[in-house]
């Protein structure tokens, strides 16, 4: 079974669209210029100079001057909460949120209720995704049985059932010996291993980043070494065993350093960073607002700067949201009792575009590359705007300005750390797997038939 076959979604009719005079930005294809893009039967059938493509019968015309056509994004790290926590999110709402954010593929984590640790669970989720998912979804299985960290999950059987990889996300693998066995066994099963790196003892009962804000608020701190020490440990094991590891949601400058050191021997390591760690710091916590409580926590400004530099240089491979929906009841409590996590799929690109691209901190091309590079981590080809490719395109209006959450969310949950902020630029339409996965409601006015 190929990795692509492990990505499952609804089968709709393939898109037939002509995007006229759209500004195409695809760093992999080295395109940054206006073009006409013709999509027929879900495939890109022509890329012509602006205004020159003919519109065949039955193809919808979109006058897209001023809009950006981007290779659609890929998120290797989201929580869809199914099975068991559908009051927070499910496959339908979660994939709709992803489509609204410009994604053409996402990977759902396994820390559900119960955790996804049996082949039957993977099969059931694939059946569900075929009915409900607006865009293709891959499902990881737990790396250890029940996420207990005591024995490996049935990695081979899980892969045969269609698991795209393995993760105990939410929890670290405490035991170095267990980590070692997982990497050994990966040689047999294949599939990427994605790790939440955290030393549970150093984190203790920590609530937010350990630093001047935690000191001022009297909250137990989560030190940055909680992440970097375990990352260094696992990089060393991967080097010894020749494994391939993905490090989730890097949050600290010390972790970037540990990653660079770990890679030195040519070890296959990849890493993710979230939009919130790139844009926000622990100063947000001074308000004691539980929407800013996540794990790993928002850290200090020097950490944020190190993450930006690492994303720019490619040391960190991709942006992943760690989309973590929670019910309002779990956030409307004192911060120490509140659930960890923020939603992210609907805001990721806009928040980063306004926060990093517009001020000139990172180029649009680099950001676009990093938003879709998550596919490579999983073993898939990232989206490309190229002739003959299945269309995977995010149509983005860089001039749009919107207040996050003001007109509701596609996600079932509203715990967005960007909620209430004015964001720059907005995804208007998403083509995923050659199908129109999302079309913004007020976008209709741009369409001529």
């Amino acid at each position: 079974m190929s990795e692509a076959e492990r990505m499952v979604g609804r089968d709709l009719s393939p898109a037939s669209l002509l995007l006229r005079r759209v500004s195409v930005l695809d760093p992999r294809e080295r395109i940054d210029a206006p073009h006409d893009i013709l999509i027929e039967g879900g495939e890109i059938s022509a890329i012509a100079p602006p205004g020159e493509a003919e519109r065949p019968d039955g193809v919808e015309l979109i006058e897209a001057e001023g809009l950006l056509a981007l290779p659609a994004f890929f998120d290797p790290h989201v929580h869809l909460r199914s099975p068991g926590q559908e009051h927070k999110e499910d496959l339908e709402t979660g994939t709709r949120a992803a489509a609204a954010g410009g994604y053409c593929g996402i990977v759902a984590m396994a820390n559900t209720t119960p955790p996804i640790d049996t082949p039957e669970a993977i099969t059931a989720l694939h059946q569900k995704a075929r009915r409900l998912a607006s865009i293709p979804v891959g499902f990881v299985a737990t790396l250890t049985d029940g996420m207990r960290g005591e024995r490996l999950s049935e990695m081979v059987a899980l892969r045969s059932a269609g698991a795209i990889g393995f993760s105990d996300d939410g929890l670290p693998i405490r035991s170095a010996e267990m980590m070692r066995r997982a990497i050994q066994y990966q040689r047999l099963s294949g599939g990427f291993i994605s790790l939440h790196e955290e030393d549970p003892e150093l984190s203790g009962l920590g609530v937010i980043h350990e630093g001047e804000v935690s000191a001022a608020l009297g909250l137990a701190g989560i030190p940055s070494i909680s992440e970097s020490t375990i990352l260094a440990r696992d990089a060393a094991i991967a080097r010894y065993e020749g494994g391939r590891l993905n490090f989730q949601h890097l949050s600290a400058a010390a972790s970037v350093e540990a990653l660079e050191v770990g890679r030195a021997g040519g070890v296959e390591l990849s890493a993710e960073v979230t939009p919130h760690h790139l844009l926000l710091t622990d100063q947000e916590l001074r308000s004691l607002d539980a929407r800013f409580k996540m794990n790993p926590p928002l850290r200090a400004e020097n950490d944020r700067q190190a993450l930006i530099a690492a994303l720019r240089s490619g040391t960190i491979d991709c942006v992943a949201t760690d989309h973590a929906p929670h019910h309002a009841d779990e956030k409307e409590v004192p911060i120490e009792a509140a659930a960890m996590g923020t939603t992210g799929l609907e805001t990721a690109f806009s928040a980063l575009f306004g926060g990093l691209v517009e001020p000139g901190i990172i180029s649009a091309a680099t950001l676009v590359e990093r938003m879709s590079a998550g596919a490579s981590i999983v073993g898939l080809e990232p989206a490309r705007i190229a002739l003959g490719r299945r269309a995977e395109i995010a149509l983005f209006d860089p001039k749009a300005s919107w207040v996050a959450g003001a007109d509701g969310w596609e996600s079932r949950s509203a715990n967005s750390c960007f909620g209430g902020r004015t964001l720059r630029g907005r995804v208007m339409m998403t083509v995923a797997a050659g199908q129109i996965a999302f079309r913004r409601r007020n976008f209709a006015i741009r369409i001529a038939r």
Partner: protein
Amino acid sequence: MRHLLDIADLDRNDIERICERARSFAEIGGREIKKVPTLRGRTVVSLFLEASTRTSSSFELAAKRLSADVISLKATGSSLDKGESLRDTISTLTAYGAEAIILRHPQAGAARLVAEWAEAAVINAGDGKHQHPTQALLDVHTLQNRLGSLEGRSIWIVGDVLHSRVARSNIGAFLTMGASVTVCGPPTLLPRGIEALGCRVESSLDGLGEADVVYALRIQNERMVDAALVPSLREYIDGYQITPRRLGPRQLVMHPGPVNRGVELASELVGAPNSLIAAQVASGLVVRMAVLYEVLTRAGGLSAVPEPTPPRSTTPTTVRSLTPASPIGDPA
């Protein structure tokens, strides 16, 4: 003042005003009938969701001295015990017409959340390890009574700073009043980044001689030894206990209570002439009266100090009808 959540909500003038008003209330305690009708007919809820003796009793007595109607609730035996959310409990109290809620809660930020939900004025009586602003106010009040001003004074706060909401509130209040603050304790009990609050950080009592005031924090045995934050109580005592030998006769000693005699403080210091511990408890009552007065009358200036009213006055007097007036005079 709408709420009192964090000592940082108050500037120097606010603290001066509250302490001044507390001094004017002190006289009521000397009367035969220790009650004024200032807050008659006002509903005050005291919601203590964590163990407390002195804070809850002094708030309750403060409200009663001002003739407010007081409801006292505790976690055990309340609906919170049955799993009711804090938000729903607050809705219930709001429906009773509670005008002030005094909240003690084991978690940081609880008072701020309740202030968002409730129509009532909220007084933070301790939220987790975060803040305990009335403790800071009563400590400033106590020191002002003894020293006049805190300006230029050196105050050392000694002990378990990591777990202390008193330390965090008092650092803020003492700095605001012009004192310099040093926190001192074993490195394992000093939170990383605490110096950003503007205090000096020491791990040895060697420089204690320069302190005008030594403020000892309570050491919780179980926390220290079971969590292995210090090797042993004996080692803590050797390094950090405030003793007559370590303290000059003119250096004042304070403690938020309850004291572990012989742990953070040598037993004989508790009642020593340079101990302000009893004065702190007395200040607690009048400062909390002043704070209740502030939040329930939305008082701004000192001019709003109430006239004393005859204890058996039959005319209902509301605070709003009081004219700006002089400090409290003799009871009629």
